């Protein structure tokens, strides 16, 4: 009996994690980079490159894009390192590698800092130091300004912090042209204006989660009704802004049609979110706005990509 219990104890000790040894596998480290956010970064950066009036060697463009992606992933990793405590109490994030105990905070910090420094240096060497500086600023803004400062202190967190998510087209165009052009500034403005309705629609649905984690999201601080009004206000600004590429001449006929229809779709849903305030229908329409906002931004950028990348550009004016 005693030998049997000893054997069981030994088997149990054998299966326990060894102190000081990393428990994460490759997929856990990849998850630290927030792959879905990284895809958005690559996608918007690629469009920033494609609409650019000048061009670079495809290999230089590819490596620049890769470094922007790695820099974006690194900032996501550092965000997860800093926010591990609040990630652990939110249902949406509690399975992330650090709160799940698969990766130690120190490992994530080292991983994020190494990738941040590496991506900035390589981008500077491969393209130019303006693009590298902008990438470094993006990482700094997301990690320090948004994650460490704004996120836990003001309901305007995602409004100001949204600038970090909107910068990739500017970084990418700077990598190609060596300067910051109006085209990329307009793309920045579209993503910047899109961020509040997108995240606040999610925050309306997940307000309990944010409340538990102590994050001052707009619905928890100003209330759901004020949030609904602000969603509508930002969408009223976003819909015409979506047409700005047409006016400036880098959005063609297909883009004009898509942004017009998409803009009306966003407006219609924002009005519904503003009107429906109680019960299941209110939650459902907020969820619909969240989902449609992703499709809207994707279609705007995908259309620009197809128009410029595959020679389908037909100017609306002239």
């Amino acid at each position, binding site marked *: 009996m005693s030998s049997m219990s000893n054997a069981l104890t030994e088997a149990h000790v054998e*299966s326990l994690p*060894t102190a000081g*040894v990393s428990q994460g*596998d*490759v997929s856990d*480290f990849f998850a630290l980079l927030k792959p879905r956010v990284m895809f958005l970064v690559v996608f918007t950066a690629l469009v920033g490159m494609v609409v650019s009036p000048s061009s670079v*060697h*495809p*290999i230089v463009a590819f*490596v620049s894009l890769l470094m922007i992606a790695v820099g974006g992933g690194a900032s996501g990793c550092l965000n997860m390192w800093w926010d591990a405590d609040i990630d652990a109490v939110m249902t949406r994030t509690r399975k992330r590698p650090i709160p799940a105990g698969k990766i130690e905070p120190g490992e994530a910090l080292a991983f994020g800092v190494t990738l941040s420094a590496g991506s900035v240096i390589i981008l500077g060497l491969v393209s130019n130091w303006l693009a590298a500086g902008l990438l470094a600023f993006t990482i700094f803004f997301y990690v320090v300004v948004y994650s460490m400062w704004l996120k836990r202190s003001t309901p305007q967190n995602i409004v100001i912090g949204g600038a970090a998510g909107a910068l990739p087209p500017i970084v990418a165009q700077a990598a190609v042209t060596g300067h910051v052009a109006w085209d990329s500034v307009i793309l920045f403005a579209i993503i910047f204006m899109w961020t509040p309705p997108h995240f606040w629609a999610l925050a309306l649905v997940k307000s309990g989660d944010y409340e538990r984690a102590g994050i001052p999201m707009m619905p928890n601080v100003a209330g759901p009704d004020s949030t609904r009004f602000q969603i509508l206000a930002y969408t009223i600004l976003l819909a015409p802004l979506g047409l700005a590429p047409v006016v400036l001449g880098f959005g063609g006929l297909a883009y004009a049609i898509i942004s017009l229809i998409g803009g009306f779709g966003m407006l219609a849903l924002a009005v519904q979110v503003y009107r429906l305030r109680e019960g299941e229908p209110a939650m459902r329409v907020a969820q619909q706005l969240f989902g449609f906002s992703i499709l809207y931004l994707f279609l705007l950028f995908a259309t620009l990509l197809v128009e410029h990348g595959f020679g389908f550009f037909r100017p609306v004016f002239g």
Partner: protein
Amino acid sequence: MARPNPPVRLTPEEQKRRRQRSMALALALGIFCILLFAVTLAKLGPGIMQRPL
């Protein structure tokens, strides 16, 4: 004289994960070297051999 620490014994699962991480790191470093070589060729082109010594 201090007693030496006992050697760390990894579980089979930990050994497997460590091997996977090592392979991924090796692959990433390999790709990194290839990319740097390709960028060097792309940026310098035929002039790669024509530089003042």
